[in-house]
């Protein structure tokens, strides 16, 4: 809904030939002594969960900015916290970032004040989920694919297609996939189905899995209804999925590298792949509150997030990809070319990042099925409708 307003302002901005006129920090002053960040769980570690993973204490020592973290579990929670105020920064995903921009909750970033901006992945620098009309509303933080995780004892060769979770078939071990595959328990999974159809049914004319007209949408739901007959239980919690791979005989599912890493660390026969159809994924951005009380520390943190061991170590910790490619190879942290490759660093082009579906899309005003219908229809599909 906020996107609508955003579009309206954009149209207005283009019409008048002006960029958004918003206050922007022009120089970094003395640090305020603290910075308050809304972040995903596990995103900001100070060595308390695992001593090896710490990208905060050095920053605090060097800048005198104490880092206060408020973890959020969903994008909606993040938006709500930012609306409440009292925070300087947020690690927003693609489905929250545009809402924050549209709602004037975040301010443009002066990239000149962030020396390491130049090291940011070119593929992310102008990504549409944080850049509006050439204005940057944040600094890329981390991204990752939704991979196809599988059991290597069942799949001697990595599966090449998502069909193992979408269509009934006999798996290489000679047994049906019925009751042995999983799918994500969130409406955004409709996009995965759409992406599959994009590849296998080009006649539907799907151009983006997040922009579906009624016919395309219906085809995606039909595919998901077939999937329902294969899936015993959908997953919404990474640790429950890990348990299901261990104890429920699940052998293939859409997943995150995070789960794969944890399962591999227990020496279980698990691997993952991005099949031929490509994958959906998430990309998070550090954004700054419009009324940030500690802008200097906030800027220092944004620079720190790109320049320090954070990118390299967080990528390993979370099974994600750094926004700074050099972090994979320059030895600033634990990431290596191999770990980055395993997390899908080279698959960027195959990934279609999560965005919130809205009715006004590239197919026209009101042409696409909006997100709230995704929610109720996906509930129906899981309920056996």
């Amino acid at each position, binding site marked *: *809904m906020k996107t*609508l307003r955003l579009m309206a302002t954009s149209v207005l901005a283009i019409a008048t030939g002006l960029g958004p006129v918003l206050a922007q920090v022009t120089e970094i002053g003395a640090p305020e002594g603290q910075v308050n960040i809304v972040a995903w769980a596990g995103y900001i570690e100070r060595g308390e969960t695992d001593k090896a993973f710490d990208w905060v204490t050095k920053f605090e020592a060097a800048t005198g900015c104490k880092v206060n973290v408020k973890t959020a579990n*969903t994008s*909606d929670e993040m938006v709500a916290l930012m609306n409440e105020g009292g925070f300087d920064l947020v690690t927003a995903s693609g489905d929250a970032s545009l809402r924050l921009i549209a709602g004037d909750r975040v301010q443009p970033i002066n990239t000149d004040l962030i020396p390491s901006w130049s090291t940011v992945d070119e593929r992310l620098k102008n990504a549409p989920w944080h850049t509006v009309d050439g204005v940057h509303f944040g600094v890329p933080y981390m991204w990752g694919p939704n991979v196809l995780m599988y059991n290597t004892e069942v799949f001697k060769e990595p599966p090449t297609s998502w069909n193992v979770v979408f269509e009934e078939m006999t798996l290489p071990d000679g047994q049906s996939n*019925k*009751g*042995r595959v999983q799918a994500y*328990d*969130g*409406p955004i999974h409709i996009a995965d189905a759409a992406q599959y159809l994009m590849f296998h049914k080009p006649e539907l004319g799907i151009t983006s899995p997040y922009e579906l007209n009624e016919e395309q949408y219906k085809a995606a739901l039909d595919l998901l209804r077939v999937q329902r007959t294969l*899936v*015993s*239980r*959908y997953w*919404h*919690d990474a640790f*429950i999925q890990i*348990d299901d791979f*261990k*104890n*429920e*005989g699940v052998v293939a599912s859409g997943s995150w590298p995070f789960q794969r890493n944890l399962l591999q660390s227990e020496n279980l026969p698990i691997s993952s792949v991005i099949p031929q159809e490509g994958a959906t994924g998430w990309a998070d951005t550090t954004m700054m509150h419009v009324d940030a009380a500690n802008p200097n520390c906030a800027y220092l943190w944004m620079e720190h997030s790109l320049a320090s061991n954070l990118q390299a170590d967080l990528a390993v910790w979370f099974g994600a990809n750094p926004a700074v490619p050099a972090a994979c190879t320059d030895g600033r942290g634990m990431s290596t070319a191999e770990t980055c490759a395993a997390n899908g660093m080279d698959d960027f082009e195959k990934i279609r990042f999560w965005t919130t579906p*809205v*009715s006004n899309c590239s197919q026209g005003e*009101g042409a696409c099925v*909006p*997100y*709230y219908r*995704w*929610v*109720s*229809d996906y*509930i*129906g599909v*899981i*309920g*056996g*409708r």
Partner: protein
Amino acid sequence: MTAPAILPARGVSDRLTGVFWRRPNVLLALLGSLAALLLQSFYSIDEFSGVVKQEFTLKTYAELFRPQNLDIILRTLVMAAVVTMACAVLAFPIAYFAARYARGPWKAAFYLGVMLPLWSSYLVKVYAWKLILAKEGILGWAADGTGTSFIINGILSVPGLEGSSLSTSPFGTFLVFVYVWLPYMILPMQASLERVPTSMLEASADLGATRSQTFRSVILPLALPGVIAGSIFTFSLTHIIPQIVGDSARFIGLAVYQQQGTAGNIPLAAAFAVVPILIMLVYLALAKRAGAFDAL
């Protein structure tokens, strides 16, 4: 001797009423939030933009009658009813024993046994059940070892209860619901059974009633308010269990959470939330008409 047993100390409802009389603000706050909920449910979401339209409409309630939403309501209702009945059947003998026969250390053991699970984390318990019921879990292992796997497979082949294991079958959800809600059924039941004076049972026998007649005509009606109280708890099924154990099919709690939290469809979430309230009201009205509260 001072307080005749036929005039037992009045129940929770009376005390609550007292609170409201003394502190009307509490009632106002409660009613206020309920009214806000009700109000929201009469708004609708704009199909085009997804914005909540603050105009009175019954459209959102009509949406409840969409097949997938009716499914959720029906599924919740059936699950709640079955869980309540199972809880009542299981709880009664336990509560009866505790109220009538358990004394001293046995009584303490009873309370400990019933309350102990309530002290441990809800999530931990549900996860534990997931492990117990899993395909490669304790139950499956024990069934394999004793050659009783056919029982589990039998359950899993019943239409509506299908799953790759008990942990992904609605039957698993049912088991965990029963486990989690059993104490909430036992305690009010035990309390209401305890309030039945022994002399009342003796009076019944004295007047010529057999044990089963006494049970039907005296014990059961007097315990009924406790059963109803217990079933109010069990009816309010939470949304966490079906997310962890079961086949992911939605119940009202999770639907409200998702409509409100993820979809931003607050009117539909509110309308969903009104459903259990309505069900409860109808249920209580029926119970009252059937005389369930005559003993209060």
